[in-house]
């Protein structure tokens, strides 16, 4: 057994554009996916995530680079000989076959014995909670049920790797949330490597062991969900995952513990932690998640007790929105610089005075470890 279930080595896939040009749908992507992993390819539409998946399935051939599945080079292996199965975004169920025939199709291609096919088809349908639906046609099922058939059809083959191309995209929000948990539970049960394409960051964070965030054909950041959220390696990733505030500035000092950034528009300095190497004078973006910000009333007196672990900025409340679990506060830092802070509502008072009002002057505390200094240009 090889170390990786699927490995993409420096893959480039070039497509012609309708205007006669060329576009790198996948641009020097290297990804290593471990056995039994739930791995997500996450990114906006057109980022190359689906093309990457199709390269693994064998529906597209790389312009350069190699695809390995279970350690074997897939240079000339057509899709029907690859040990992977796909759940398509449109499900692609065979409309002229019943549910059972759909699920049996892959086993018939393997020339599995009839009795064995019947047994495994039933087993697979039970697994996706569609026992007794075998005689229906796909058109007679709801969207969620069709989705389960597609899943059963792929899983019944016991593939080494299951490829899922936005499988929940067509479902409504409630069903989607249910299926997310079910899919994750199913993956734990069958122990198969799942490679999951999605544009929904919340979905990726909920389900994945690891995530590759893609943009414009490149895999920008590959890591654990917590790493991608807390320590994104570039501006795009910080922006795409969750909400964040960006301040732009210039590196003034680099020390072991922190990177000091001068923010010209606020004429102040801020300390943060950097990802990678920085040189003095380099343009950078500073990302601050709204829930990491702590606000306090500003009485105008200078603050002396500021420890080295926090940054302090000053601002004014311009709007607040109470959303139950927290209050979302829009702040103006002057010079048209806006910031958003989410203050958790941990006090149970109905007194409006307890919350910030528009125009209040506030101190904005930001922990240094949550002040992320990121290269301005995506590399």
């Amino acid at each position, binding site marked *: 057994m090889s170390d990786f279930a699927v490995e993409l080595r420096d893959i480039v896939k070039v497509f012609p554009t309708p205007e006669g040009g060329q576009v790198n749908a996948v641009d020097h992507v290297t990804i290593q996916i471990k056995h039994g992993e739930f791995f997500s390819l996450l990114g906006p539409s057109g980022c190359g995530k689906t093309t990457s998946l199709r390269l693994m*399935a064998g529906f597209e051939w790389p312009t350069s680079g190699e695809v390995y599945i279970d350690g074997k080079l897939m240079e000339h292996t057509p*899709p*029907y000989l690859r040990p992977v199965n796909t759940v398509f975004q449109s499900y692609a169920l*065979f409309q*002229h076959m019943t549910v059972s025939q759909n699920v049996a199709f892959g086993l018939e291609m*393997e020339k599995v014995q009839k009795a064995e096919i019947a047994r495994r088809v039933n087993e697979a349908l039970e697994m996706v909670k569609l026992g007794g639906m075998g005689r229906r046609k796909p058109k007679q099922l709801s969207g969620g049920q069709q989705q389960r058939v597609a899943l059963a*059809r792929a899983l019944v083959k016991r593939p080494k790797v299951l490829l899922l191309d936005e499988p929940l995209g067509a479902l409504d929000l409630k069903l989607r949330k249910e299926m997310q948990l079910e899919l994750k539970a199913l993956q734990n049960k069958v122990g198969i490597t799942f490679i999951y394409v999605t544009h929904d960051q919340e979905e990726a964070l909920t389900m994945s062991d690891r995530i590759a965030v893609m943009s414009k054909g490149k895999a920008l950041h590959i890591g654990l969900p917590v790493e991608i959220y807390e320590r994104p390696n570039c501006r795009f990733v910080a922006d795409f995952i969750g909400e964040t505030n960006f301040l732009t500035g210039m590196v003034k000092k680099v020390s072991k513990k922190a990177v000091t950034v001068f923010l010209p528009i606020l004429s102040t300095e801020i300390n943060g932690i950097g990802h990678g190497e920085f040189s003095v004078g380099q343009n950078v973006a500073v990302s601050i998640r709204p829930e990491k910000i702590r606000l306090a009333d500003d009485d105008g007196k200078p603050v002396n007790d500021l420890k080295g672990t926090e940054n302090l900025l000053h601002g004014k409340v311009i709007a607040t929105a109470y959303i139950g679990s927290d209050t979302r506060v829009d702040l103006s830092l002057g010079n048209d610089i806006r910031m958003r802070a989410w203050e958790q509502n941990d006090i149970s008072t109905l007194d409006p005075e307890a919350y910030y009002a528009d125009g209040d002057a506030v101190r904005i505390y930001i922990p240094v470890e949550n002040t992320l200094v990121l290269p301005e240009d995506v590399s």
Partner: protein
Amino acid sequence: MITAEISEKTIHRFSLKKALRESPVAQGLFLMGPTNTYLIIFMVIPLILVTALSFLSRGTYGEVVYKFSIENYVRLFDPLYAKILGYSLLVGLLTTVFSLVIGYPMAYYIARAPARQRSLLLFLILLPFWTNFIIRIYAWIMILRSSGFLNSFLQWIGIIHEPLNILYTPTAVLIGMVYEFLPFMVLPLYTSLEKIENAQLEAAADLGAPPWKAFLRVTLPLSVPGMIAGTILVFIPAMGMFVVPDLMGGAKTILIGNVIRNQFLTARDWPFGAAASMLLMVLTMVFTLYYTRKAGFGEELLI
């Protein structure tokens, strides 16, 4: 006062506007009006006339005698006509089969071609309709006759030394018929094949089906509606065709269509011609109904 109220309620004044607004039946009748009028005048009434005519008999000078008789139908069971009918059925079937065999790869190719080429190819399929059918048949005669293009070409490249005798044989009739009806097979097949999503074929490949198996298990079954529609569109008119056998079959090939035409135009035996028409119609209908039932018309077509 009370009587006035009642009378106002009970007097039901018909308003077309109101009916069209509120009643689906009225809307349906209104929209189908032109079609129904046309069909009644040009199909239902003539059909009734032909049916009635087929039970009358012919006078000495070719006039219609208004006397009920089933003589015409009895005459149809003459072995001579049975043979012609059987032969027509065979030619109709062969035309359908050849159209299907030639048309399927064609439709498949067009359906799989890039979108821009597709409209050009479809245009080429329809292009022959821009010229008169008779002229196109004469073109075929030019090609097939002993000193025609085909024979000259084959002799020139040295495959044959004596000209082939194709024109005025059943083969020529078949060639002409398949030529004429091919578009009617290709178009519905194309519609069916074009509807098959690429993802369906990818799914088949993904599940382990090599291309030929994916074709047999997915493409072919999904194109059945097109095959049924194409078969019907070719078979029915092929059964009644008389121009092609007339021009390309010489005197040797007589189909039921020729018999009917001759009864009306040459023999002036309208009642017998009407009876033969009825027989052809009933046979075609029975055949088509049986075929569509067998091939799974209905639910399968609703894919």
